[in-house]
């Protein structure tokens, strides 16, 4: 039994109060909802609204970008509320402290944290509302509250003779005090959680009705595109817009901080206008950036000791005494998120208010940025969160640039404006997964197991200079660069991880699974190399080094068993395995791979085992694993952003390829039953995929691919190295 704050109906406690167990409870009622309360609906807290017509509206403070929060979060409420799932409605939350992330102190979605960090908060919200409904029924019947019990949208009396619906009880319940104590269900008593539920957003996503930011239409809406510098860090020296202004439909050309915007009646005219602009650019310091040169620079940086991110024992002494020494270096390119919905934002700036419609992952930061640009107080900035056509981190930007552009242009135009990024703008627009290099040295003992291991990681800092620096940059180490490496579970007594911060310049960002997207590849491929050097089976080798990590072993064993490890793969394919923990969840994958006659990698099948602790919606977890495998495979086989002369060489899906239906492997997902605390599911399926494929390719060919992506050209280069 945990205590909750003393929130009376009229005097809701202020948000941010840290209560027993460090939980922030969402029992503060935003002003605009409090106003609605007088009109009748039962609004016990910021997350629930029950009306006389029986609708139960759950207000969702997370962005729906495909990961299923518009279903998983209502499930948490519905379980404790005993609501009828058919009556559940969802509503995107406004920006308000009541809807802040329970750990971040701002409103936002990311880090595979939504379910984990909302579980208690939403469960308690549901339980408190249920108790009030039960008490309302007890009062009406003049019975003891203990004899009244909520089930599936009704409160029923123990004797079975009376029942009242939530809608009938809403008005009475609204007059009651919010309970100070609520008890949550034991896992075994749950009816909704852990049972597959249909996603609430599916129908609207099959008939064109779901509204994404790019679909928002307003009277008098103008469309803008922005000409941004061809090189990161470049600036506008001057421009000639005389031709652009002559394009039919073009309304204005506006210079903003990030470039020159062309505003028109419609998108095609804005695009035409942009092509007619003549801009002189000062290209800045990155005008000669070249990926091949950068790779050599990173490799050279790794020659020297870096800042220590993790240390156990004495690596140098242990290496000196090792029976065998092994070295390898791994290289990773920049990667674009390439969300299916190109970035966009609608802004309408008036003298007394600003309204924004956007698919964003960081509402508070974007709202505050708009307030700063317009000079309005934050509460006069209304931000509407739409559906997001993918996020992957691309819509969680500390500088709010895609919102900022729209607000600047709308302010200048004194009219509502939608800024649309083309796919080229997106692919060339930066905020990439940083390029990285991992250099290993290890020593094996007489039994073939590693006695010493050192990893040096070279990577730009994602968080430096952002509001996230305080939490994630510690002693010169960007945690997002070394996560998954510094905390490797492999039991190696003399262990050292060092970090070199690569020079800043190219805008970098979290990309689905963040640092794990490269550290897992390095860790899981190198451990495979050590197993091979020791002439041991890579699965058995991992088991020995993970003996004290039951959850790692659990998924590893499950994936190996389901894949038929040790037996020939289907269609003469070869197996590779990888296991990795990230965002509180453990995932192992076995890939079945063959090499085509043209020298490219064909992935036939991926077997995935996941232990993400307590489950909410099992079908969504499966879907997220399938999704992560495709996302990981796109990057592993095709993904790279490269620079020449400072320019990004890729531009659209023809040269920044994402996996197609004809490349889709058969995917099997197995869930480990677990009562562990809930882990994330959006990201943890990504990290093991690429190393499982690379390890399978090694099994098939005897060649190690240490540079991503694993293109036919990379395979040819690996053959030349032999």
């Amino acid at each position, binding site marked *: 039994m945990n205590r909750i704050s003393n929130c009376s109906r009229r005097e809701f406690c202020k948000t941010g109060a840290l209560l027993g167990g460090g939980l922030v409870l969402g029992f503060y009622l935003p002003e605009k909802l409090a106003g609605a309360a007088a009109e009748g609906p039962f609004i016990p807290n910021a997350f629930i609204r029950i009306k006389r017509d029986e609708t139960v509206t759950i207000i969702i403070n997370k962005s729906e970008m495909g990961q299923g929060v518009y279903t998983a979060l209502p499930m948490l409420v519905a379980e404790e509320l005993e609501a009828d799932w058919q009556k559940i409605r969802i509503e995107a939350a406004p920006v308000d402290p009541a809807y802040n992330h329970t750990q971040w102190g701002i409103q936002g979605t990311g880090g595979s944290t939504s379910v984990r960090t909302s579980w208690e908060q939403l469960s308690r919200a549901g339980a408190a509302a249920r108790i009030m409904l039960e008490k309302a029924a007890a009062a009406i019947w003049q019975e003891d509250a203990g004899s009244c019990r909520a089930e599936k949208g009704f409160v029923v009396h123990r004797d079975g003779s009376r029942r009242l619906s939530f809608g009938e009880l809403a008005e009475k319940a609204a007059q009651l005090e919010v309970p100070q104590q609520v008890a949550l269900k034991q896992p075994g008593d749950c009816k909704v959680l852990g049972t597959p539920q249909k996603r609430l957003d*599916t129908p609207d996503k099959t*008939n064109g009705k779901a509204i994404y930011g790019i679909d928002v239409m307003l009277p008098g809406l103008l469309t803008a595109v922005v000409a941004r510098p061809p090189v990161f860090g470049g600036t506008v020296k001057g421009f000639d817009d005389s031709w652009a202004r002559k394009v039919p439909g073009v309304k204005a050309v506006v210079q903003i901080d990030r470039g020159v915007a062309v505003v028109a009646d419609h998108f095609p005219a804005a695009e035409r206008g942009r092509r007619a602009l003549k801009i002189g650019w000062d290209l800045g310091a990155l005008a000669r950036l070249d990926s091949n040169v950068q790779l050599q620079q990173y490799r050279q940086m790794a020659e020297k000791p870096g800042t220590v991110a993790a240390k156990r024992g004495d690596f140098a002494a242990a290496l000196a005494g090792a029976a065998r020494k092994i070295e390898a270096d791994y290289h990773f390119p920049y990667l674009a998120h*390439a969300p299916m919905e190109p970035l966009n934002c609608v802004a309408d700036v008036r003298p007394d208010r600003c309204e924004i419609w956007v698919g964003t992952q960081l509402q508070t930061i974007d709202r505050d940025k708009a307030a700063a640009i317009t000079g309005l107080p934050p509460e006069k900035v209304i931000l509407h969160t739409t*559906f997001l056509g993918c*996020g992957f981190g691309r819509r969680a930007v500390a500088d709010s640039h895609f919102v900022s552009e729209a607000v600047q242009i709308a302010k200048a135009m004194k009219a509502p404006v939608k800024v649309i990024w083309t796919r080229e703008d997106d692919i060339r627009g930066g905020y990439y997964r940083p390029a990285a290099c991992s250099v290993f040295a290890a020593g094996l003992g007489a039994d073939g197991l590693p006695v010493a291991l050192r990893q040096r990681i070279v990577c730009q800092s994602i968080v430096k200079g952002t509001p996230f620096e305080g939490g994630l940059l510690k002693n010169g180490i960007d945690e997002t660069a070394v996560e998954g490496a510094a905390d490797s579970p492999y039991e190696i007594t003399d262990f050292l991880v060092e970090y070199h911060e690569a020079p800043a310049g190219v805008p970098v960002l979290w990309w689905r699974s963040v640092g794990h997207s490269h550290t897992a590849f390095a860790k899981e491929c190198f451990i495979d190399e050590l197993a091979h050097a020791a002439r041991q089976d890579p699965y058995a080798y991992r088991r020995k080094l993970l003996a004290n990590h039951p959850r790692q072993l659990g998924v590893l064993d499950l994936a190996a068993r389901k894949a038929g490890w040790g037996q020939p793969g289907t269609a003469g394919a070869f197996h590779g395995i990888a296991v990795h923990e990230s965002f509180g969840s453990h995932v192992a994958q076995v890939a079945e791979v063959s090499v085509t006659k043209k020298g490219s990698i064909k992935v036939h099948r991926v077997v995935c085992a996941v232990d993400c602790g307590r489950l909410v919606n099992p079908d969504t977890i499966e879907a997220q694993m399938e999704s992560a*495998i495709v996302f990981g495979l796109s990057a592993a086989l095709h993904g790279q952003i490269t620079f020449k002369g400072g320019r990004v060489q890729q531009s*659209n899906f023809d040269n920044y390829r994402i996996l197609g*239906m004809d490349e889709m492997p058969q*995917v099997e997902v197995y869930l480990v039953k677990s009562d562990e605390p809930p882990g994330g599911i959006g990201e943890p399926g990504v990290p093991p995929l690429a190393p499982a494929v690379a390890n399978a390719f090694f099994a098939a060919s005897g060649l190690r691919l240490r540079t991503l992506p694993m293109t036919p050209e990379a395979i040819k280069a690996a053959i030349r190295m032999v």
Partner: protein
Amino acid sequence: MISLNINNKNYQVEVEEDVPLLWVIREYVRLTGTKFGCGIGECGSCTVHLDGEATPSCQITAKEAEGRKITTIEGLGDDHPVQLAWIEAEVPQCGYCQSGQIMQAAALLAANPHPGDDDIDHAMRGNSCRCGTYQRIRRAIHQAAEKSGQGGKS
């Protein structure tokens, strides 16, 4: 002025002849179910039916679409067998590409009521899904084919 027949309705649109049909549908007719993804015919998010044939609407000009029967996701309704199969198989994640996927799949099934996996791979490979829902799309197409075979409307 261009005359377009979209979802069995006639529209007179004041637009230059070479504007891609996609933008006419989205910004002039304001049917936003058809999505912009790449603008170069690579991703299939903008797929519509032109006289029943699946076509990326970013690659067709308004003029070229004149006199043809254009069907968008909104014109498919809510209970086309492909849509029902999509719901049954819980295909969508972010959902952004799914209008295009559904239009492509509906055209496939109209031409080939019982496609095999290879037929599906071939027909659907121009429709990208960044969320990676391909396995469920494949399952849903088989389900829709099966249901249609049992006498459901197609």
